[in-house]
C-alpha cells in the first residue's frame, strides 16, 4: 500500500477536524510511519487486555496472598477465625475461577469436536466422488460413518457437560457467567475487609494491599477496555484534532474489536464506519433511529456516562417512555415530558424488558428469596441500581426480611427489605444458617434462635488446640447466657466460650461411642470411625447449597450434620468451610470405617510420653541442612492435609534456593531432594485419586510433578549433588577443620562419657586434632590414654596401625606425633 492509498484508508476511518494540521504533520512524518504507530498502539491495546494474562495475574495474586498469610501465621495465631474467613474468601475466588475455567475449557473442547465433525462430513462428501472402487468406497463410508457417529456422541456429551458446568456457574454466582468477575471483586472486597482484622505485620499488609491494587487495576482495565483503548490512542488522535465525539465512535469500535481480536486484521475497524463527513449539528443515524421510540426504564443509573447528571428518581422502573431527542451518538436520550438527557443504557425495548422480567421471575422462584430473613454480613458491595439502599441503616448480624428481588444489568441480585427503602446487594447478606455456623466471630447480637440455647445443656467438644483449660472435654455444661459474637456464658464457669465447641449430648455420644477410652484424651479427632461419607447426586444445586463447588465423582466426609427445626438437614463437608449443603443433594456412600480417610487424616494413636535420657551437641551437618531435612521428612512421611499441601507447594519453590546456597552439606542436599520428590509424587497421587486438582495450589503440585523439564532439572541436580557429595567425602580429609568443629571435638574428647561414644571416624581424627589444637591438659590426657591403653580407645589405633604395618611393638613408634 502506497502513501496515497494509506492516506485514503486513514481518511476513510477518521474524521480530520484540522486538515491543515494533518497535512503539516504528514509533511514531516511518513503516513506509513503514522499507520505503523497506530497499528502498534492497537496491538498494545489487544495485548494489554489479553484474557490469559489476566487469569495468570489472578492466580499469581491468590498464591501470593496465601504465601503472605502463611508466612505471617505466627503473628496471627490468636485470630484463627479470621484466618479461616480469609482463607474462605480466597477459596471462593479460586472456586469462581475454577468453575469459569472449566466452562471455557469444555466449550473449547466442544468447538474442537465440532470442527472434527465438519471435517469428517466433508471427507464423507468427497468420498462420494473419489476415484476409488465401490468396495473401497463402501468400506471407507462405513468407517467414516462410525467415526461421525462417535464424534456426534462426544459432542452431545461435551455439550451436556458444558451446559451442566454453565449451570453450576450460574447457580454458584446466582448471576450468570458474565458476572463472574464481579463476584471476584466482591470476594476481593471481603478479603480486604478481613485483612484489616488480621493481626498481620505492616509489611505484609502493605504487600497485600499492593497486590490487591495491582489486580484491581488490572480488573478495571479489563472491564473498561474502551477507556483504556481511548487513552492508548488519544495521543495519536490529538495530533490531528480528532474530536471527542468521533473518538467515542472510534472508541466503540475498539471496544468491540479489542474483546475478541487476536490479530491486527481482526482488529481492523469495520469498513462500514465511514465518518469522513461530520454532521455536527444534525442528529446522526444512530440518534435519529432512537427518536420516537418507546422504551422501558429499567431502573439502572447512568454510572457509565461521565458527566451525566440527570435526575433518575423522576423515572419509574418498568414504565414506558417516549424518546423525543438523542445526542452523543445515541448514548443519551431526552424523554417526552422531561428536560434531562438520560443514558440510553437505562432503557430497554419492551421485548427486552419482558425478557428480563421473565428472567427475574424465574430467578425469584428459583432462589425463593422473597419472604426469607437474611442477616447483614457487614460488607458493602456496589448496587448498580438508581435506588440503592442506605447501608448506614443496617446493623451487622441484624435480621432483614426480603420483600423484593431485582437483578441489575450485571444480573446481580439486589434485594429490598421490609421496613427499608432501596435495594441492597444480596452478596452482603447471609442466611441465618450460614451466618451462625460459619461466621460466629462476627460481633453480632445473638439471634432468637440462639437465645433459645439459654438453660440448655451442651457437651464441651473442643476442636484442635483451642481448648479451654477451664473446661473438661466431654463434660456437660449449662448455658447461662448467649453473648455477642457466638459465645456462651456457662453456669458456674467464668469467662466466655465459643459455641462452636459445644454439641448436644446425643451428637457427642454419637461421635464418641466408638472408643470410650479415647474420649477424654482427644474427643474430636479420635472420631474417625462411623463418619458419614457422601457423594453428590445431582438432584439439586442452588445458591444456598452450591454443590456445584464439589467434584461430582468424589466422596466427601461429613464433618457436621445440621438439623433445623423445620426438619431440613444440612451437611458441613470437611475441607469446605464456607458453605453448608442441603443433605438432599447427596447420596450416602457408607459409614467410613477405614483407617485412612479420603482427606488423608489418620485416626490418632495413643500418644506416648518419652523421657529425655540424654542430650548431646550436634556433631555433623549444618543446622540449616538438618532443619530443612526435618521439615521435608515431616511432609514426606505425613499424610499431607490440604493446608499443609498448600504450604508445601510454596515451600518447594523456596527450597529451590538450596541450589545456590552453600549452607547445606551435599549429603543433606541429596537427602532433601529425595524427600521433595516423594512429597511431590505422593501429593500428585493423592490429588489425582481425589478426582483432580481443586485449586491452584494442587494444580501447581500436579504441574510440578508432571513438568518434564522440572523433573529433568531435578534429576540433574540430584546427580550433580551425588557427585559433589562424593567429591566432598574424598576431599574432606584435606580440608581444614573449622574452629567450631575443633572445639566440639575437643570438648567431646575431654568428657569421659562423651568420649566413650566416639565413632571410629572420630578416633582416627584424634591425634591430629588433640595434639595440634588441644590444651596441655587435653594432650596429657590423650597421651595417658594412649600410653596407658585405657578406656579401650587406643586399641583401635594400635590395631589399625599394626595392620598397616606402621606399628611395631611399642606406643612410642605410633604413626603420629606426640
Amino acid at each position, binding site marked *: 500500500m502506497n502513501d496515497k492509498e494509506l492516506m485514503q484508508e486513514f481518511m476513510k476511518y477518521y474524521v480530520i477536524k484540522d486538515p491543515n494540521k494533518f497535512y503539516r504533520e504528514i509533511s514531516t512524518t511518513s503516513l506509513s510511519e503514522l499507520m505503523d504507530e497506530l497499528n502498534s498502539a492497537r496491538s498494545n491495546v489487544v495485548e494489554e487486555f489479553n484474557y490469559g494474562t489476566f487469569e495468570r495475574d489472578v492466580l499469581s495474586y491468590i498464591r501470593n496472598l496465601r504465601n503472605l498469610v502463611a508466612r505471617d501465621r505466627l503473628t496471627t495465631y490468636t485470630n484463627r477465625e479470621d484466618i479461616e474467613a480469609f482463607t474462605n474468601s480466597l477459596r471462593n475466588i479460586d472456586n469462581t475461577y475454577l468453575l469459569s475455567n472449566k466452562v471455557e475449557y469444555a466449550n473449547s473442547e466442544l468447538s474442537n469436536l465440532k470442527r472434527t465433525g465438519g471435517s469428517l462430513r466433508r471427507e464423507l462428501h468427497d468420498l462420494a466422488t473419489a476415484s476409488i472402487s465401490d468396495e473401497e468406497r463402501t468400506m471407507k463410508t462405513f468407517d467414516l460413518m462410525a467415526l461421525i457417529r462417535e464424534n456426534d456422541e462426544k459432542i452431545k456429551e461435551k455439550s451436556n457437560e458444558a451446559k451442566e458446568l454453565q449451570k453450576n456457574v450460574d447457580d454458584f454466582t446466582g448471576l450468570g457467567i458474565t458476572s463472574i468477575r464481579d463476584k471476584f471483586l466482591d470476594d476481593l472486597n471481603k478479603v480486604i475487609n478481613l485483612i484489616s482484622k488480621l493481626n498481620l505485620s505492616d509489611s505484609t499488609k502493605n504487600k497485600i494491599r499492593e497486590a490487591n491494587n495491582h489486580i484491581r487495576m488490572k480488573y478495571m482495565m479489563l472491564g473498561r477496555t474502551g477507556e483504556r483503548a481511548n487513552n492508548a490512542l488519544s495521543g495519536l488522535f490529538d495530533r490531528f484534532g480528532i474530536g471527542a465525539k468521533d473518538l467515542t465512535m472510534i472508541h466503540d469500535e475498539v471496544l468491540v474489536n479489542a474483546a475478541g481480536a487476536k490479530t491486527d486484521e481482526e482488529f481492523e475497524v469495520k469498513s462500514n464506519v465511514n465518518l469522513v463527513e461530520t454532521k455536527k449539528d444534525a442528529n446522526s443515524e444512530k440518534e435519529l433511529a432512537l427518536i420516537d421510540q418507546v422504551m422501558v426504564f429499567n431502573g439502572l443509573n447512568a454510572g457509565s456516562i461521565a458527566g451525566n447528571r440527570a435526575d433518575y428518581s423522576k423515572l419509574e422502573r418498568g414504565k414506558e417512555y417516549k424518546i423525543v431527542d438523542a445526542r452523543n451518538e445515541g448514548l443519551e436520550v431526552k424523554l417526552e415530558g422531561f428536560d434531562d438527557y438520560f443514558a440510553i443504557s437505562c432503557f430497554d425495548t419492551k421485548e427486552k424488558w419482558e425478557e428480563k422480567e421473565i428472567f427475574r421471575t424465574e430467578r425469584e422462584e428459583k432462589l425463593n428469596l422473597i419472604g426469607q430473613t437474611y442477616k447483614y454480613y457487614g460488607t458493602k458491595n456496589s448496587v448498580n441500581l438508581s435506588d440503592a439502599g442506605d447501608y448506614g441503616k443496617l446493623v451487622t448480624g441484624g435480621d432483614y426480611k426480603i420483600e423484593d428481588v431485582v437483578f441489575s444489568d450485571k444480573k446481580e441480585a439486589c434485594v429490598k427489605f421490609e421496613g427499608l427503602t432501596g435495594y441492597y446487594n444480596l452478596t452482603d447478606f447471609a442466611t441465618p444458617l450460614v451466618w451462625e455456623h460459619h461466621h460466629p466471630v462476627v460481633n453480632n447480637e445473638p439471634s432468637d434462635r440462639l437465645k433459645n440455647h439459654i438453660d440448655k445443656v451442651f457437651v464441651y467438644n473442643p476442636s484442635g488446640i483451642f481448648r479451654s483449660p477451664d473446661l473438661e472435654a466431654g463434660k456437660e455444661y449449662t448455658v447461662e447466657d448467649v453473648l455477642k459474637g457466638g459465645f456462651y456464658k456457662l453456669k458456674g464457669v467464668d469467662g466466655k466460650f465459643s459455641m462452636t465447641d459445644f454439641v448436644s449430648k446425643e451428637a457427642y455420644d454419637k461421635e464418641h461411642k466408638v472408643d470410650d477410652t479415647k474420649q477424654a484424651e482427644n474427643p474430636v479427632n479420635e472420631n474417625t470411625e462411623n463418619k458419614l461419607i457422601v457423594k453428590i447426586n445431582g438432584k439439586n444445586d442452588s445458591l444456598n447449597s452450591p454443590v456445584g463447588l464439589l467434584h461430582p465423582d468424589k466422596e466427601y466426609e461429613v464433618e457436621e450434620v445440621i438439623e433445623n427445626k423445620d426438619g431440613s438437614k444440612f451437611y458441613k463437608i470437611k475441607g469446605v468451610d464456607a458453605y453448608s449443603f442441603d443433605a438432599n443433594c447427596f447420596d450416602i456412600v457408607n459409614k467410613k470405617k477405614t483407617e485412612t480417610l479420603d482427606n488423608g487424616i489418620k485416626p490418632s494413636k495413643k500418644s506416648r510420653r518419652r523421657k*529425655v535420657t540424654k542430650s548431646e551437641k550436634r556433631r555433623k551437618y549444618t543446622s540449616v541442612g538438618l532443619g530443612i531435612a526435618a521439615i521435608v521428612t515431616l511432609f514426606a512421611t*505425613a499424610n499431607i492435609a490440604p493446608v499443609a499441601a498448600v504450604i508445601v507447594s510454596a515451600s518447594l519453590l523456596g527450597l529451590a534456593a538450596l541450589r545456590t*546456597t552453600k549452607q547445606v552439606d551435599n549429603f543433606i542436599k541429596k537427602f532433601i531432594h529425595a524427600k521433595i520428590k516423594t512429597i511431590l509424587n505422593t501429593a500428585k497421587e493423592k490429588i489425582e485419586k481425589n478426582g483432580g486438582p481443586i485449586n491452584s495450589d494442587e494444580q501447581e503440585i500436579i504441574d510440578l510433578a508432571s513438568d518434564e523439564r522440572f523433573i529433568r532439572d531435578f534429576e540433574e541436580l540430584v546427580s550433580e549433588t551425588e557427585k559433589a557429595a562424593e567429591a566432598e567425602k574424598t576431599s574432606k580429609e584435606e580440608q581444614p577443620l573449622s574452629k567450631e568443629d575443633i572445639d566440639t571435638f575437643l570438648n567431646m574428647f575431654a568428657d569421659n562419657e562423651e568420649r566413650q561414644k566416639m565413632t571410629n571416624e572420630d578416633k582416627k581424627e584424634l591425634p591430629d586434632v588433640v595434639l595440634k589444637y588441644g590444651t596441655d591438659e587435653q594432650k596429657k590426657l590423650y597421651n595417658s590414654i594412649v600410653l596407658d591403653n585405657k578406656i579401650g580407645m587406643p586399641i583401635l589405633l594400635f590395631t589399625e596401625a599394626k595392620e598397616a604395618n606402621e606399628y611395631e611393638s611399642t606406643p612410642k613408634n605410633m604413626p603420629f606425633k606426640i
Partner: protein
Amino acid sequence: MIVEVGRIVTLDDTDKYYLSDETEQNGKTYFLGLKVDENDDPSDESLIFEKEIDGEDVYLTEVEDEDIKNYLSAVFITKMNKVLDDLEENA
C-alpha cells in the same frame, strides 16, 4: 537435662532425635525432631513433640492430633521459609 534446638536428645535410652526447631504456642513448647541414627545421619522420620517437665525430668510427647500437627507444621515451615529467604538474600 538440656533440651533445646540444635541438640540431639535420646528418648527412653533408645531413639535419637535432632531438635531442629522450637515454637511456643498457648504456653506449650513444641519441638520439631528429626530422627537420626547412631552416626547422627538423618533417618526417614520427623516428629513434632510437646515438651513437658516433671520435676527434674524432661519428657517429649509426640503430637498426634492432626489439627495441631498441621498447624505446627505450618509454623515450622514458615519459620524455615524465612531462614531460606534470609539465606537467599545474603547469598
